């Protein structure tokens, strides 16, 4: 979501030469046709730049955007925003304080520059601009966030399906107020205990594949409860002594019971927070509401985590293309363009794996390269491209191709669909197989004819959040028996859970569930149980 560079750009002084221009700015600019000159900005210039950029974006790139609200903030406020997961409003929690200290430290030590902007997926789309940015940078950031990200938020199917841009801010406002009221009524410690536990399960607090199931109506649930009560009241031990008709029926009877039980509870359930919120026997209504708030926030961010490469790629492609168009039309000066290019190349810097600066694949770099590659394939394809991408190669309409990709993919499917051999060669991708039992890595595939498919599949896989996060589900609970909550971890490729954090997280689940919780590790292929851990083994 945020452009980050290694400590940097905000001090760049490309525009310093034109200091005297400030007084006669309007005269100069209108004569030369430039949108702005010099590094200073004011609201009039920002607005003029925005309008010019928006006009080109709509006319040339056919972007479709939410209305924009630009907010100017200071570096202190940017740090504040960082620590509360980038949202302008957030409830209070100590962990945000911790993140703030961490970010502040990095910033002060010069380890990391601040983002030039932050953009919120809301309607109107809120873009934060740092006050320290030069005017050239503000123009760059406007194109990047106010148009690129904005278009992506409005059109990508994940965001359209899963998030409600117009409601998020008012929801967060409600959440903040609600949690503050809970703190007043029940004490900070009690609220913190619930929030801590819920935060631990945020990863497991999203629906990945479906909308939340329709709730059975209150009356239906009431009926079930009454029936259970009736059975309890009318329990008669005599029935037990009746002879069974056959041995087999008993077993199938309990099987049936389990199946029915699972059905009524909608099991298995991947969304642990949802399950706890709806079914925990020990939570008060306000505690359920807090869990719900955490769950909604987690769900809101879920699409963003699935579309990092695409989102940043789209925004970077948009700003790069728009800035060049502005420059070609003589709307920005060479000095400003140089500054923009310098910041642009900072942002898309990608060191090789053996470089000490390497810290994973830079989504800006990969995203931009893929977008430009699609543009190349549709305008000037090679024979290879025609083989690999018969439906887009040489169709000449790169705009529509890109708009279509932006609307209909997430990182995983996007890479699976569009990563071309040419780009793999350029990046010199390779696959390193890493088995924990071996003392060495093995190079499995490189960028050659045999490796393209594997590299592409592997890279796509690594962006599939559903596959790369531990898959943990609620499988069973006997509400009328010992009420032990049974979780199952599907172990893929023998990757187990880290034990200390697993135990700590189980303890959190126990807090929310109130009774014993057990987690079984099941091998996804063989279905055999690898180990089982329950809260009674952990201790407080």
């Amino acid at each position, binding site marked *: 979501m945020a452009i980050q560079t290694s400590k940097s750009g905000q001090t760049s002084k490309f525009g310093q030469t034109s200091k005297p221009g400030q007084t006669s700015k309007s005269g100069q600019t209108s004569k030369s046709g430039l949108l702005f000159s010099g590094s200073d900005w004011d609201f009039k210039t920002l607005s003029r730049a925005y309008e010019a950029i928006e006009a080109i974006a709509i006319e040339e790139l056919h972007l479709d955007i939410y*209305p*924009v609200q630009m907010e100017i903030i200071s570096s202190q*406020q940017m740090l504040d925003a960082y620590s509360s997961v980038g949202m302008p409003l957030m409830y209070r929690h100590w962990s945000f304080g911790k993140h703030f200290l961490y970010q502040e430290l990095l910033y002060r030590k010069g380890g990391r520059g601040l983002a030039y902007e932050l953009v919120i997926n809301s309607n*109107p789309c809120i873009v*934060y601009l740092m006050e320290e940015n030069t005017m050239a940078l503000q123009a760059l950031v406007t194109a990047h966030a106010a148009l690129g990200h904005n278009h992506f938020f409005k059109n990508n199917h994940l965001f359209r399906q899963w998030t409600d841009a117009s409601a998020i801010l008012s929801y967060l406002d409600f959440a903040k107020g609600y949690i503050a009221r809970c703190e007043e009524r029940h004490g900070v410690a009690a609220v913190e205990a619930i929030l801590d536990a819920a935060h631990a399960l945020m990863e497991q607090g999203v629906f990945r594949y479906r909308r939340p199931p329709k709730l059975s109506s209150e009356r239906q649930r009431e009926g079930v409860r009454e029936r259970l009560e009736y059975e309890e009241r009318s329990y008669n031990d005599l029935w037990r002594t009746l002879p069974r008709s056959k041995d087999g029926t008993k077993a199938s009877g309990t099987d049936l019971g389990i199946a029915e039980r699972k059905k009524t509870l909608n099991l298995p359930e991947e969304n642990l927070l949802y399950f706890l919120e709806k079914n925990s026997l020990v939570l008060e209504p306000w505690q359920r509401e807090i869990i719900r708030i955490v769950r909604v926030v987690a769900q809101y961010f879920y699409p963003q985590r699935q579309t990092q490469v695409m989102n940043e790629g789209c925004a970077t492609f948009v700003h790069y293309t728009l800035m060049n168009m502005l420059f070609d039309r003589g709307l920005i000066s060479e000095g400003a363009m140089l500054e923009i290019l310098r910041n642009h190349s900072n942002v898309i810097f990608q060191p090789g794996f*053996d470089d000490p600066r390497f810290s994973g694949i830079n989504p800006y770099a990969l995203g931009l390269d893929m977008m430009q590659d699609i543009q190349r394939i549709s305008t000037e394809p090679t024979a290879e491209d025609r083989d690999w991408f018969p439906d887009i190669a040489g169709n000449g309409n790169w705009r529509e191709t890109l708009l279509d990709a932006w609307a209909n993919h997430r990182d995983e499917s996007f890479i699976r669909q569009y990563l071309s051999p040419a780009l793999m060669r350029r990046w010199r991708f390779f696959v390193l197989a890493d088995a924990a039992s071996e003392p060495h890595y093995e190079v499995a*595939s490189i960028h050659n004819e045999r490796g393209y498919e594997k590299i592409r599949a592997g890279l796509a896989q690594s962006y599939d959040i559903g596959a790369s996060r531990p898959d943990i589900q609620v499988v069973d609970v006997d509400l009328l028996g010992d009420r032990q909550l049974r979780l199952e971890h599907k172990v893929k490729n023998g990757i187990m859970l880290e034990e200390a954090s697993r135990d700590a997280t189980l303890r959190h689940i126990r807090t929310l569930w109130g009774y014993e919780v057990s987690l079984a590790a099941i091998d996804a292929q063989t279905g055999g149980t690898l180990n089982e851990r329950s809260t009674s083994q952990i201790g407080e």
Partner: protein
Amino acid sequence: MPIFVDRRLNPKDKSLGNRQRFLKRAREELKRSIRDRIRTGKIADVDSEHAVSMPARGTGEPSFSDAKDSGRRQHILPGNKHFAPGDRVPKPGQGGGGSSPGKTASEDEFRFVLSREEVLDLFFEDLELPDMVKLNLKEILSFKPRRAGFAATGSPTNINVGRTMRNSHGRRIALRRPKQEELDAIAKQLAILEAEPQSAAPARQRIAALREELERLERRRKRIAYVDPVDIRFNRFDAQPVPNANAVMFCLMDVSGSMGEREKDLAKRFFVLLHLFLKRRYDRTEIVFIRHTHEAQEVDEETFFYNTQSGGTVVSTALEEMHRIVAQRYPSNEWNIYAAQASDGDNFVTDSERCIGLMDGQIMRLCQYFAYVEIIDERESHIFGSTDNGTSLWRAYSVVNQRWPNFQMSRIANAADIYPVFRQLFARQPVLQKSA
């Protein structure tokens, strides 16, 4: 046209609440780390910012995560230079990290800075002056004015202009006081009519009518005052009682020749700590510094901590000086009186008896609490450690100690003892306990 919002003027420190929550959570560990640091470093350092490392306990944010040392996985990396399929690459040394799956240092391992206030808060937590408010002083002695609405009477300095003018405006509207504009309009009309040379009968009549109207309005304006005494409102103040908690701390320090550099240093450190503590916790506490050799004098803070002086040792002079000052400035029925004394325990031969007399007869009656700290040699510490055996002053004060529950004494042999002794002397106690 986008909407612009300038947020730079918004209140700062939006995340301050989160920071406080975090510090509260990590309190115990932060406290320990600061105390350890100060025990080993300079005491005066407590009065500054401190960098502390992120406490491990209580601030973890666990979640289910994959164990790095199990299973099979793939890394897709850019920048292949010479690898071919099947090549083997040795794993970097244990610990995972290293070049390939580029791991960054965990967020939990960092240091952050606590402000001076936060450090002092953590440092002096759970400490307080015992028995702070004298029972017989619970009656109220002083008052502080506090706003309490409005009154119809009062002194002119307290007029509330806004209220007054609002009343006046309402009354003027209600009584239909003619406005200046109305008068002006009529006067203008009149002037125009009079300026015309020929005066016909209707015009003359009109002029007369207008004159009459003007006069009527002016009369009315005079009758209805612009601001009437009934409009006037005054700010009302209530005298709010302030509970009396006057406190004075006497710091008595021996600076005689027998106190070597080391002893003086330890004693000063003790008082620096005490001084900081009082400044931090009791902003209305007065502090009186008395230093003594064979004679005692009251000095200011600067002199007390930084001046050097030397001479013989007569402890009773300090006690007498304190008694004199109490009698002069701090009547014991109005003040909570505390004293802390530091000495190496040496005293003029017959003076210890005199000290006992003074303490028994006068000082202890006045004092809420008297703490005596004796600076001893490190070698002596294990000889004197537990016995009542000791210097002449120690033996003398032991007698006092047995008679008065509000007397405490302790020994300091090295810098590391200062803080524990300080805590022991000023620990928050429900009731001052004493094994008499």
